[in-house]
């Protein structure tokens, strides 16, 4: 336990609901979405539904960008006015410039920057969210920044961040898969299952057939070994899914594994713009000692 108070900052791409952020006093730095008409702050000005509709209704080009160093600097300074040290739990550096920009901000802050720690989670969405909550809990419990970071490093390997997408259209649009793969997936009703591995998005597998059945199969496969799952908390993070789909997934998860807390969260616009509509993930933490 340390005497110094540690504050936690995360990014909007952690997809945590407002009440959790409020409960743990977690500040958020928002990513940006650039469209043909302007630049919008993720979550505050633009939501997943907005960007998905923009992209599917022929709104034009769009891209997501990491927060600017100035935004990080402002957030760090604000937090440092209350806390002795600050930890930023950031989205994987393998898929975003967030860590780099945050480190630039730290460098620009001079001596004050020494009280800021940037932690590369190697995850995204509520996979990152799990780590943010952990960091906030530890900070609340009075752990030092170094100890919190050590805990997060240990936890990083145990977080399961997977998603299933209805098709490969958005993955192709964002250059993650070639057009031929997209066509192939579309022709044979193939639904890619993606995973965060070593900080990068990789194809974990595929589900074939009707999307509802494929989605349920994905849930069952993801939770096929409940003994190796830390059943404290699970997130169902969705991008453009209907209430009906979400209810169906919830029921399936309940049948697979008894989690203490189950949260349904909406993916941020940044995440959604990269995976497309009807995408969801079941994100949880593996129990300590479980084989990876």
């Amino acid at each position, binding site marked *: 336990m340390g005497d110094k108070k540690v504050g936690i900052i995360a990014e909007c791409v952690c997809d945590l609901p407002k009440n959790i952020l409020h409960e743990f006093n977690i500040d958020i730095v928002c990513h940006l979405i650039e*469209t*043909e*008409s*302007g*630049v*919008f*702050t993720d979550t*505050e*000005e*633009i*939501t997943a*539904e*907005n960007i998905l509709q*923009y992209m599917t209704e022929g*709104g034009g080009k769009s891209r997501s960008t990491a927060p600017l160093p100035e935004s990080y600097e402002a957030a760090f300074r604000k937090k440092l006015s209350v806390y002795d040290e600050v930890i930023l739990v950031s989205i994987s550096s393998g898929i975003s410039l967030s860590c780099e920009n945050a480190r630039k901000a730290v460098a620009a802050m001079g001596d004050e920057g020494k009280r800021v720690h940037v932690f590369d989670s190697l995850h995204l969405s509520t996979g990152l969210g799990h780590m943010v909550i952990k960091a906030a809990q530890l900070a609340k419990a009075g752990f030092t920044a170094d100890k919190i970071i050590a805990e997060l490093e240990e936890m990083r390997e145990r977080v399961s961040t997977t998603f299933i997408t209805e098709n490969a259209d958005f993955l192709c649009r964002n250059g993650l898969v070639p057009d031929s793969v997209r066509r192939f997936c579309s022709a044979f009703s193939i639904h890619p299952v993606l995973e965060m591995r070593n900080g990068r998005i990789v194809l974990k597998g595929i589900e074939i057939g009707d999307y509802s059945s494929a989605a349920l199969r994905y849930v069952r496969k993801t939770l096929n070994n409940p003994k190796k799952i830390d059943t404290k908390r699970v997130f169902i993070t969705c991008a453009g899914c*209907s*209430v009906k789909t979400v209810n169906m997934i919830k029921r399936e998860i309940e049948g697979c594994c008894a989690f203490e807390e189950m949260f349904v969260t909406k993916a941020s616009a940044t995440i959604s713009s990269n995976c497309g509509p009807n995408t969801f993930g079941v994100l949880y933490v593996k129990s300590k000692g479980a084989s990876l």
Partner: protein
Amino acid sequence: MWEFLRELKKDADESDSRTLGLITFAVAFIGFFMCAVNIITRSWVMAAITGGLSLWCIVVFLLFRKSGSLMAVSAGTLSAIGIMMMYFLVTGGVDGFSIVWLLLVPPIGIYCYKLYYGGAFSILLGILIAVYLWTPLHELGYDYSDTYFLRFPIVYFFDTVVSVYINYRLWLSNKQQRELLELSERANNTKGDFLANMSHEIRTPMNAIVGMCELILRESDISPAVREYCFNIQNSGRSLLSIINDILDFSKIESGKMELILDEFNIASTLNDVINMAVTRKEDKDIELIVRADPDIPIGLIGDEIRIRQVIINLVTNAVKFTNKGCVVIKVTQTKHDYGINLSVSVSDTGIGISAENIEKLFNSFQQVDTKKNRSVEGTGLGLAISKRLIKSMGGFLNVSSVYGLGSEFRFVIPLKVSDSRPFISIKDAEKIHAAGFIDLNKFENRRVAQEYKTLIGELAEGLRTDIELLDTAEDLKAAVASKKYTHLFAPKDEYLANEDFFKEQSRDKTVVVVQDRQGAIDIPSHMKCIFKPFYSLSVASVLNNESILTNLNERRDSSIRFVAPKARILIVDDNIINLKVAVGLMRPYHMQVLTADSGQAAISILRSKDFHLVFMDHMMPEMDGVEATKAIRAMEGDYYKKLPIIALTANAVNGARDMFISSGFNDFMPKPIEMSSLDRMLKAWLPKELIKAPSGEMRYPGGDRRKPRNQTPQPEKKEGLISEETGIFYTGGDREAYNEILGVYVRKSSEKLLQIKELFEKKDWKNYVIEVHALKSSSLTVGAKQLSELAKELELAGKGGDYRLIEEKNAPMLEMYSKVAAEGAERLGISIETTDTKTEETAANEAPVVETAELPEISAEKLSGIIKRIFTACDSFDGDEISAACRETAEYSFKGKALKPLFDPISADADDFEYDSAREKTEKIAAEFGLSEV
């Protein structure tokens, strides 16, 4: 029969050419394949036939690609298939189970090539098969079994009949569907026409209401209360228009014809309009309207303010509609970017909320969610759908979050360019201000309201960069006042009344500001200040800057007139005199030379003799409408008439109207009621740039100049005669001045009308007689001549019913009464009736009665010449005010023994009616009569 075949051919010709091309290509491919097989099996004849047919198909395919003729490709491919089938038949290729190949031809052929080509081909093939099998020809070919000769044609016949029947039913069903679709489109068009008419009917009177309010608001000598009421009338008028506008907007958006009009605007103006509307909508509901506006939002933004306001009003209206207790919070913020700002507006409430399932269908058109719960709530269900589409067209996003039962929040963000980056609210000497807001937060049942007020005060202090603190108990307030020197104390009405003595005492050395609702507002001592709810940054800033919020609004309105064009000559054409007055009034601040015409024909006559820079032309006018008039103007000789900008001024603002007007020769289109911002834009767009000037200081308050002298005219004593002033004022909208103006027109037109009615009576032209007495009935009632109106009505009914005896009996008494009414009117207004006879006005100056001049001083010839010169100049520049002013100067004088007033009054009247030519002629005659021709 032929008609039926023509329809079938039309259907076939509408086939998908790509599919037919592919079939041709497929037949060619099969042909080549069979050719190859035959070559391998050394069946040279078959190889040659199949190869030839295949080549034939390729030729057809290429020709088809070049010519695109469906008939050619159909005939070519079908002939190849037919020859191939006949060859199979002759060589025994369709014996046994292989018969299926031949039997597939009718259903596939008819399906692909439709009944016309496919059906004809199948029948032809059937005939050929029958001819081959039932004639000795079959002996040349394959030896089929005996039963085959009968079985095969019968099976083929039934196959063809069934295929034809199925496809016929399919064709019939498609045809019916097409007809239904056409019917539905026609119905849709009819709906569009209905909307066009409805919009016209509603917009025309609304033009008068909203426009007249605009004119009243421009008057400088009205009380703040009247200004406030008028403001509310205007806003309510606009809200009435919003329903029809919703429907029109939606149809425009759906057809992709919604155009954004970008112009500079100030968010303060938008917020004021929104707040006024919200306060009106809120009525007696126990909800707090809280406005949290970031004072740093730039003062000059570039965007379509009307559409932005429309979206905010829509969101606020919904919030007020669905909230019965608690609060509605409007939050306006910004984020800065390289291109300008992102303007974010959030409207949240403590209403009934929306369930997650319903949020999904929230933006659907014509749909209100949770209709069981919202049965009492009115609405078209279009508002959100329109708002979302409007925001999308502005490059922004609209989203919603809600907790069922607790409330909802609608937010939108739009990127906007900035023309002036100064903050829209700023405080003078902010560091010298120490203010306290005393709000008893415990009185609010809903904790959200208290929280919002806390946040608001904090934001005000931060945003206005001044010291404002919130105190929520009287004890805290008193303690704070004792320990700190405050400059301003803000208190809501209830808190003020509960501590009235304390506040009165404090008002000796502090500014005490009572914040209250407009409804049930209390009078406060004159040395205290009052602001109406909502309590927000602009109203607080007004008080802190020691300004009136109404002054701010007026300044805003006047500042919207950002230019004048004194040399610009404008012609407004409209058959409705009220609309003309509104249009002229709205254009007055621009100091332009405005002339009016009440018909298309009159406009053409005026345009022949005078040059104008811009014409506003009404669409719907009797005899010659705006479109016909514009076409006639464009057809006139000379480049000027081809290039003269003509703007359609109409209440018909439905989808497609713009295109119609542009194609009819108009340059642009301005919907009624005329919005000052639209007028501003239109003038800036179409007036020559060199005529547009910045307004000088004295032009800031342009309203009402022409009316002031009339106010000074002593009113004759109220007399009970044939005219009831009270009735007249009632029928003319409760305004004495407007009544006098209309009575003036009535009196001036009376001689002409009398002559007309007399002539019609003498000619026994009953049809037109009825029209004239009908008009007399209405106009007499309008001026308060009830008896005359009733008499005219009696004669009108007699004319309609063919009771000409009654007309002959009562026409003379009616005309006599008409003369008396006119004389009484003239006497009341102090004008001379004889000189106003339009038929005789050319000689009026000469025949003007000689008035006793003993009491009137003689004007010098030099001075009179000067006045006449001024009138000439004013006539040339269409300056009615100057003409009236010059005429008034002669009123107290005589010249060469003649009183000048009766001579110059008609000139002034002409100026009032914008009849500058007539005014000039009359002046010339007076000058000639008095030997002042040298002027």
